[in-house]
Structure formats: C-alpha cells, structure tokens
C-alpha cells in the first residue's frame, strides 16, 4: 500500500514537472541560451546587443502576430511573407516612382494588402479550399504579382522606372524613422499589447477562439462564423502589410522576395508561443516570446560565426521542436 502510494506521488510530481516545463519551457530556454551565449561571449548581453536583438525581431514579431490571429480561427496563413514583400514593393514604388507623401503611400499599400487578405478569405471561407492550400496558392500568386509589378527587379532611390524614365522620388525622413530603434521596437510592443488585449478582453477575440475551438458549435451558438474567419484572414494580411512597411523602411528599398524569409520564423514564433504560460492556444504574448527565442538563437549563432547559410538548419529544428511540443502534448 505504501509502495503504491509513493508510486502515485512520484507520478504526480513527474506530471507536474512536465506540465511546468510545457508552460514555461520557452522562457527557460531563452534564459539558458542567454546564459550560454554570455558565457561564450560576454559582449552578447551588452545593452547594445540586446537592443539589436529586439530590433531584429520586430518585423518577425509583427508578421507572426498576424499569423497568430489566423491561428486563432484554426487557420494558417502561408501568404504572409508574400504579402510583406508585396507591401514593401508598393510602398517603396510610391515614394520613388510617384513621389507620394508618407501617409498616402502607407494607406494605399495597406489598402492593397487588405485585398490580399480578402482574396484569402474568399478562397477559404466561400470557396472552402483548406487554409494551407489556399494560402499556398496565394503565396505564389502575390509573390508573382509583386515581382511583375517591380519588373522582376528591385526598386531603390535613383533607379529608373520600368519604362526607363528617371525617378526623383526619395524615401522621406519621417518614413525612415519607422525602421529605426527605438521606434521599430515600440511599434512591435504596441502591436503585441493591442492584439493581446483584443484577443483576451473583447467579445470579438473570444469569438475568434470559439470559432477555432469548434466551428460547428460556434455556428450553432449563433456566432457569425464566416464573418469572423474572414476578419481573421484580413487582420493577418494587415499585420503582414505592417511588417512589409517596417521592412521597407529598414532596408530603404524593395527587394525581390524580401518578405519570404519571414514566413518560417513567424510560424516558429507563433507555435513556440502556443504553450506559453499553459495557454495551449495561439496568443500574442506567447508569439512575442517565441520570436525572442528565435532572435536570441539567431543573434548568438551569428556572433559565434556560424555561417548565415547554416542558420536555417537551426531555425528549422527549433520550429520542429516547437511543433513537437505542441502536438505531442495534445496527443497526451
């Protein structure tokens, strides 16, 4: 009897330990990574480097927040990278080709990006294509649209238009601020905070989670399911567009497929964030913490002279690990 009791106790503690790791594993991992990199290179935890890390994850985080919203309705938006690229091209072209003002350029670029979200929503909600496949198609479509728009090349100040006419437009100094610290970091933190409040403290946020949790139950509870799913994909595109604008300001030009590289780390951040604090569902703060983990890892490895072309191995492995913890936990 005693032995049996002890055994139960042991199992209980084990279960408690595992659930603790599952809840706070991301934070522990960040802490251990920072410790490790600092021991290896003391300059790692200098304020300037920590600021660099935050700056480097700003764009990923904002794009990942959009993805998080699509995850709340149990969808996955793969087209966010292309949307970011497209917005980058649009906003830079408006400055360089058409010499438009900052506000007009940004509003126009965001408006066009929202159309991308509407197309996604139409294919998924109305035509009923599974989300992954629908956004896989639009990922290619809008990557192609962006490239066609820029004539298959990049756009930067002083470069002629596609028809060869010279340009005089420049990126205005106010626009440059968006991509600089501390503004870019402030934008990121604002986005995280606003979306966190929206998801957790408003009716609409709750509805998004209900739709993602059980779409049929949500429908029969009288929730306008299609409307909320559409809304989620449009918000996803909106944040991808915001990421694209930050990217444009950061690099000061429109490059081919500039946004494509953000898809993978954004997916990783959002999935790492699922388990944060034991939430077990997509959440803004978790996504931010996930992005920090990816950022710390990338920065540390670069400082340790791991070549850039090998980084994908590590980033991919982190994504696999995050997915493993999500799905393995679900199975149990």
């Amino acid at each position: 009897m005693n032995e049996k009791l002890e055994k139960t106790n042991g199992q209980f503690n084990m279960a408690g330990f595992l659930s603790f790791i599952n809840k706070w594993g991301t934070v522990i991992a960040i802490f251990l990574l920072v410790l490790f990199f600092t021991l290896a290179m003391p300059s790692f935890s200098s304020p300037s480097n920590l600021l660099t890390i935050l700056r480097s994850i700003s764009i990923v985080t904002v794009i990942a927040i959009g993805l998080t919203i699509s995850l709340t309705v149990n969808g996955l938006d793969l087209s966010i990278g292309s949307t970011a690229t497209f917005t980058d091209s649009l906003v830079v072209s408006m400055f360089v080709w058409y010499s438009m003002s900052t506000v007009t350029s940004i509003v126009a670029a965001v408006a066009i990006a929202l159309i991308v979200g509407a197309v996604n929503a139409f294919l998924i909600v109305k035509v009923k294509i599974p989300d992954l496949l629908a956004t896989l198609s639009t990922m290619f479509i809008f990557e192609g649209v962006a490239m066609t728009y820029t004539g298959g090349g990049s756009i930067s100040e002083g470069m002629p238009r596609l028809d060869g006419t010279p340009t005089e437009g420049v990126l205005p100094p106010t626009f440059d601020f968006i991509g600089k610290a501390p503004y870019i970091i402030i934008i990121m933190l604002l986005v995280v905070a606003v979306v966190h409040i929206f998801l957790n403290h408003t009716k609409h946020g709750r509805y998004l989670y209900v739709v993602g949790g059980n779409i049929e139950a949500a429908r029969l509870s009288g929730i306008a399911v299609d409307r909320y799913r559409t809304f989620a994909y449009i918000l996803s595109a909106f944040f991808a567009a915001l990421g694209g604008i930050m990217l444009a300001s950061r690099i000061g030009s429109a490059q081919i497929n500039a946004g494509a590289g953000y898809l993978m780390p954004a997916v990783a951040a959002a999935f790492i964030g699922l388990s944060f604090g034991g939430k077990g569902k997509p959440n803004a703060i978790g996504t931010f913490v996930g992005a920090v983990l990816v950022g710390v890892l990338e920065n540390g490895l670069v400082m340790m002279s791991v070549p850039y072309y090998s980084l994908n191995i590590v980033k991919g492995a982190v994504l696999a690990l995050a997915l493993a913890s999500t799905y393995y936990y679900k199975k149990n």
Partner: protein
Amino acid sequence: MGQQKRTKLEMKNISIEFPGVKALSNVDFEVESGRIHALVGANGAGKSTLMKVLSGAYDHYTGSIFINDKEVNIRTPRDAKELGIDIVYQEVDVALIPYLDVAENIMLDILVNKMKGKQFVNWREVHASARRVLDRLGIKLDTRKLAQDLTLAEKQMVLIARAIAEERRFLILDEPTAPLSNKETKELFRIVRDLAYNQDVGVIFISHRLPELFEICEDITVMKDGQLVTRRKMEGLDGKQIVELMLGKKMDEEYLKHNVEIGETIFEVKNLSEKDDAVKDINIHVRSGEIIGIAGLVGAGKTELCKTIFGALPIKSGKIKLHNNLLNIKNPHIAVQQGLALVPEERRKEGVLVEEPVYSNLSAASLSNFTGSLSFLKPHKERVAAVKMIGDLGIKTPNENQKVAFLSGGNQQKVAVGKWLMADAEIYIFDEPTKGVDVGAKSDIFDLIGHLAGLGKGSIYASSELSEILAITDRIYVMYDGEIVKELLTSETNEEEILYYSTGGN
C-alpha cells in the same frame, strides 16, 4: 449447445487512473462465450473504460485477465484481437474508411496484418471472403458499395462483420442500438443471437435502453462510479431495480410534468422545405408555455427539421413567424438574434467547446450581455452569471474554470442547455437532449424544460425515445420520411399509436 466447452473470460482487480481521476477501482468482471451479457451503469460509471481495457485500448491498468483460468496479457488492440476479443465502438464513422468499399472495410484487419510477405492483393478473394462473412451474419449488402454511401445501420453491420471476419470468442458492442431504428435494432438482435447461440461468441452488450437488455441479455453486470455493483442473471430483475442499482438510490418512477398554463400561438412554421427536401412541407405551431414533441424513427428527418428551422440547413421555401413577425432565417446567427435556440444532437461536436472552460461555454451564445464599451468583456459579470447557472442546473464541476472535456456526458449536456438559458431565447429547440445521458441528469433536463415552459417560452422537443416524448410534451407531431404525417395530443395517445404513424401507417 449446452454440452460444448465454453470459454470463460475473467478480469480481476482491474484499476486504472487518468490524470486526476480514478476511472476504475478493483473491478472484477466475468463473461462466458455463447452468452449475451449486459453491461450497464450511469454516465461515468466506467463501463466503456472497462471494455477499452479488455480490448487493449489502454496499457497502464493494473490487475489481471484470464481466459479459461490461464492468465493473458492484453496491452494493445492487437493482443486482444489475437485472443479473439474485439470491440465495435459507438462512433461507427471513426472506424470506417469512407472511400473504401464494404469488402475492403470488412477485410481491413486482414489486409493490414495478415498479408505477411504478399505484396499484391487478390481482390476477387477479398470480395469473396467479405461476402462469406456477410452471409454468416445473414446480411444482404453489396460488397462494392463505398462505406461513405452506407446508412448508419449498415455501417454498424460492416463493423460487426469486420470484427468477426477472424475467429472471435468475445465481441463487445458499445451502445450499438443508439442510432438504430426499431427495425434495424431487431435485425441487429437477430445477428447477435445468431453469433452467441450458433457460433459460440460471447457478446458484451453496453446500452442505456433497459427494455432491450431484457429482450436480449441473459446476464448483467452493473457498475457505478468505477466499481462493480453486482453481477447476476437477468432473470428476476426488473427495470426499476436495475435503475436503482445504477444510481444506488431509489427514484420516483414517473417524471411529473409541470403544470403550465398554455397561451397564444407564438411560433409558426408554414410549408417549410429544406433545399434538398430533407424535410418537406412542414407545418407546425407552438403556443406560449407549450412543449411540442417531434416524434419519429431515426432518419425520419427530426434533426433536419430542427436544423432547418434554426437556419443551419438551407431553406428552399416556406415561412417562419415568431409573434406574428415574419423571420428571414438565413443562418443560425440570424436565428439567435431573432430569439431561437437549438440544443443540437451531437453534443461534443456541435453543442459544447470541449477544450474551453465551463464559464466560457455558458456565455458563448450571450457574450454581448457581458461586454461594455468597445466590446470589452466584463470577466467578473461573466463568471458570476456562470457560477449562478452552474448552481441552478446542478452541473457537477469543481468550479467554473473546469474544461468541459472533463465533465460527464450528462453535465456536458447541462452546459449545452445552460448556454441557451443565459441567452434568454423565445423558442427552444431540443434535439435528442437525453442521448447518452444517465437517468438522474435526464430528469434534471426535463425539469429545466418544464421550467422554461413555466416562463412562457415555447419548446420543440425532438426525440426517438417515445416514453420521453409522452412524458414531457403537450402535443406531438409525428414525422415519417421528412414529412409530418400526424398531429396528436399527448394526453390522448400512447406509444403504440405514435409508433404506428412513425412507421408509415395512416
């Protein structure tokens, strides 16, 4: 047959725990081949868990299992199958592969496990073998038909055929009659008897429908709260005694209908047809304080009627009026805004959010009552209302933050009903609300519906349980093949008359 050596299966001291729950404690169980054994218990009594242990679905139980006094080790479904034990689960769709045909589905285990070195499939032989199995059961079914095109009853037959495609000594049927009509149930019983008496299979029969047990079972095991209550012959027991054993207390036999003043007609459905004619030309009306019953066999269109009224299935033609206002119900969202509520049949799939806590389930249909400016939630108000509802309905849960997945079936159903009480609708539609719910929770749910009638609400109660319809309603519409064929006053009718009309008599 009596002379033949029977196989005896014993489970001794079986215990199993899940995180936070002791699902079985020291249960003994015994069956013999060639007999039909009833396994009953209220929801959460542990009968399904015990059978999952026996069929190898869990590997972390303690205790031992013996066949003919020889200890055997069952830790995986394959172990169980090799010992000749198989189970047919309640959810038939989970076990079938929709785009494979009947023969492939029947022979699946053999195709998967018994191919050995063979790489090519001899389809003619597969179909012939499947045919032989179906013949053994006396089932006429085209082996080339796809599983997705079968009726529920046919799907179940296919699963039973799969289970006995190989030599079986014990077959577990988990609530096999729940989705079946009376005729289909009779057919199932014929097969079960044939298996037991002519093929020496031991059948373990889990069911909530007591009359059936008397019809078909010889032995009975009653479980309660993860423990064995009794194991004995059916002979000498009556339904009331079994219910008492299941509940561990005496209960009033009959549900007493609330006495409610019935008022004016508040809800009217005229010439309503669903887009694909799942229901046709429906005319019903509900008065304030009135509970109307929708009776009919499974497949008569009761669920479709409920869903069409609620906008969950597309409407082809017809009118729906509430308080003399014409409603244009295009989807459930609009239906809810207009004051309709539906407690759907498929509780876990459609009624509740199993991964969410009780409180957010309860507020899901009425969240606007708990929001302030800019749609911000008022979490305190929401929780207070949830706690009150938990108390009002007697939902058994440690607190309002418990995940609904951890509640028993009856309590989940109370949550599904409570959601609509919070939403304060005018017309409540209940689709098989007592399905898979134990006797205690059932009378709670009846009380709730009676209470709603007392408030002057109208209720539509769809069920294939005639005794329930007779107990709770004021007026009954009988459905047959998607149409309403008869309107009856509950006080002037009986089970026989309803059954007569629901089987197409007129």
